[in-house]
């Protein structure tokens, strides 16, 4: 009363004025372009496609164009066209691959549902957030080539999750090999020639036909 409340407030602001010069708990500003915040591992931005081998990204895509993410995507920003032919995946099994895989990042809301529903660990969330462009139409529509990033990159941004995924995939692969071996043993009478995996065909990246 009688101005004591006002004086108390003035003391608080004075304390903060002084504190902002020496107390990092008060002065929390980061001078952004020079100092970048440390992103938490869980941070997510836009999805990317994981490939196993950086030298042959299109040939080692994990995506098998099952289109589950396309169906589940709430804002419907994923567009997939299945390939007509098949290519061997990481386990050597012949799989369909996405001939067209596009994400409209102007529509994408970074919800991570595509990642959760993907049974093949083929789509993961990226951490690149400086993605402003001057063309809000074509430049924000990312095609297969722009989306694909190697597994090693995935390890650098989400190390824990990547390790889990790799462990799981290795286990799956081993299980598949075990199974194949068991099957081979069962069919021991007929020495089965191991199916020679077709050489990965380097595909020309089919960019989307952009409308006029």
């Amino acid at each position, binding site marked *: 009363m009688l101005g004591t409340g*006002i004086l108390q*407030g003035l003391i608080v*602001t004075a304390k903060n004025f002084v504190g902002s010069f020496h107390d990092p708990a008060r002065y929390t500003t980061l001078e952004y372009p020079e100092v970048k915040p440390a992103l938490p591992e*869980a941070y997510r931005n836009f999805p990317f496609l994981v490939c196993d081998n950086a030298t042959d990204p299109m040939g080692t895509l994990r995506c098998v164009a099952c289109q589950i993410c396309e169906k589940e995507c709430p804002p419907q920003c994923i567009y997939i066209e299945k390939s007509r032919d098949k290519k061997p995946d990481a386990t050597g099994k012949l799989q369909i691959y996405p001939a067209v895989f596009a994400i409209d990042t102007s529509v994408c809301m970074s919800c991570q549902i595509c990642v959760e529903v993907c049974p093949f660990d083929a789509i993961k969330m990226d951490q690149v957030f400086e993605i402003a462009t001057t063309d809000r139409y074509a430049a924000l529509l990312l095609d297969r080539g722009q989306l694909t990033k190697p597994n090693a990159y995935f390890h650098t941004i989400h190390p824990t999750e990547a390790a889990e995924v790799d462990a799981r995939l290795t286990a799956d692969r081993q299980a598949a090999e075990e199974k194949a071996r068991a099957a081979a043993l069962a069919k021991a009478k007929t020495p089965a020639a191991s199916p020679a995996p077709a050489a990965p065909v380097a595909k020309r990246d089919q960019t989307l036909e952009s409308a006029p």
Partner: protein
Amino acid sequence: MNASPFTNPSTGAHVRSVRSDLPGDLMEVSMGPHHPSTHGVFRMIVTLDGETIVRLKPVFGYLHRNHEKLAENTSYLGSMPYTDRLDYLNSMTNNWAYARAVEQLAGIAVPERAEYVRVILAELTRLLNHTCLAGFLMQDCGCSGTPLMYAFREREKILDLFESLSGSRMMCNYQRFGGCRVDPSADWLARARQLVEEYGPFLDEFEALLTGNEILLARTQGVGRLSAALAINAGVTGPMLRATGVNHDLRKVDGYGVYPRFQFRIPLGEHGDVYDRYMIRILEMRESLAILRQAFAGLPAGPIMNPAAKLRGFRPKVGEAYGRIEGPKGEIGFHLVSDGGPNPWRYHVRAPSFINLTILEDLCLGHTVADAVIILGSIDIVLGEVDR
């Protein structure tokens, strides 16, 4: 003669949104949608006698995107990230309310650890929302940004926690039907615990800055009084209702989740004015801190998701459910009608901001423009939720 810019080209009718033909000294002012204190694109058509308000009609829908229609065309899971965008300050509680409605609709059990984590996140969200509100309200009262900046500084710390848990600061998309998406690590819990310990001193300082300030007392006390009877009848919920002295908190009334296990008190107002609404929120934050401490202490080990819950191909049986929780702004509820399909047949959001606005005119009549601004601020609206 050239067509006036105020003429509708198709009908030729004079287009006007604000009347200029009022009798006597009355003046009609359109406050918003472009106004610094309408918390977004909210608009009030205010009839003034001098500076005294004699009529006030809220206009909204500028942010309307038919959220409910979107949800009807999306799977149950697909609506979860959209709920983040309702009240974009409180995505965690929105998630929870929606998850709770679906869990009631499909009868999904939630593991105990997930319930605890939900309580932790809901109370952190309450801290976040009430801190923001206090900052915004002070800004509306004419402070030059200082309380708002302090509030945002602390809010950022909570958002950092949300980010490192869910991956996103505001659009968390964290809760799932039958649990939560990620299990918080021990490191995360330690950070959250530290934040809770540091929050009490921050609240002390924030209160020292303004709660006893004579100008603030004069501005807020006795302004925008709401009676308990009208508050109940008009469906007002949350801190707004409790500021009128009605003891109604769904955390106690419904006792959902694991709330019955915690000891906490419900602060109640007496006058139902702006000051009470502000103070109730400050006191609620202190109670939230108490809940958080208990939740950290009692957090059990175990699964975070019900293993029986399906992520893909989720189709609840025919029926409907209304699930509600005590959000920071009031009762946030979701009404779901299922026809057995993968998408809800009907999905309705009971938005507390929207319904709390019903009594805006009653609160503002007889007050001045300056009061209308702080009354609106004390109602605590987020236009993402009002307009849906």
